[in-house]
């Protein structure tokens, strides 16, 4: 699949089929995540792959933003200690989050290319997630990616057109896309 097809075809899926995600695919998603850009090459990410059914159920129950039932979820965490050690205050407070977001984007695009549906969830209980997955101090859960085979894909949401959010050479100066 062309990268633009994945970018435009990805949706936040909330209804999944009851079908297991192959381990080979899970590894591909994680490899894609690890190739994300990283400020100062900190690579602050830690991933927790949740595929145990009981644990997955607990994660779902403490995540109001987790809809549908999936065979797999990947929690993207930031290692704040590492980010601070390698990247200083900016690494800890900003780059660690930005890097995890970029790794997450790689996961969902790779999933799309593999024919999998995903939804990025931030609406989970931070404290409960740390308790259930036994996440140590200094490591923070950032984003949960729920993964499975899509049962129903939502219609594409409206996107703000380029002419409304993009400027040429300086802020406020109109950028006219060629097709406009």
């Amino acid at each position: 699949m062309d990268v633009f097809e994945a970018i435009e075809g990805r949706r936040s899926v909330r209804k999944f089929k009851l079908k297991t995600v192959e381990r080979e695919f899970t590894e591909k998603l994680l490899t894609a995540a690890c190739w994300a850009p990283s400020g100062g090459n900190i690579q602050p990410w830690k991933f927790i792959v949740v595929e145990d059914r009981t644990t997955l159920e607990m994660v779902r129950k403490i995540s109001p933003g987790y809809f549908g039932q999936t065979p797999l979820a990947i929690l993207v965490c930031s290692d704040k200690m590492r980010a601070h050690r390698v990247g200083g205050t900016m690494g800890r407070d900003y780059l660690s989050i930005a890097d995890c977001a970029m790794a997450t984007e790689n996961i969902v695009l790779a999933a799309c290319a593999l024919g999998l549906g995903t939804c990025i969830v931030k609406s989970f209980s931070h404290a409960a997630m740390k308790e259930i997955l036994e996440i140590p101090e200094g490591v923070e859960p950032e984003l949960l990616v729920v993964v499975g085979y899509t049962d129903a894909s939502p219609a594409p949401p409206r996107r703000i057109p380029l002419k409304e959010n993009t400027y040429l050479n300086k802020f406020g100066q109109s950028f006219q896309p060629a097709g406009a």
Partner: protein
Amino acid sequence: MTKARNTGNEYLFELALFLATSARNCIDEPPLYGPFRLLDAISRLAALPEHAEGLDEDPFLKEVKAFVDEKKFLVTTDVEGFTRAADELVERFAKELKRRSAENRSNE
């Protein structure tokens, strides 16, 4: 029998947990997520008879659940549509309240 009761209790626990985590998250989340979670809670509450013994299925709440499940995700794509759906839901409840009140009065 015991199993059904356990299922009901488990569902009730899950519902309470949903409300607890939603309450905490609503402090930081976008303001519209508050109404969104409440609507989702109605949907989950309406499913309680499927899990708990001794509760009859309520046709009105079943319809409400279907309506909420169809409309709730408008919160991320169409705020006006989401608001209209919330308005319509309250109107439906008001009409049902009147109907039930009249029914109760006639049964007195």
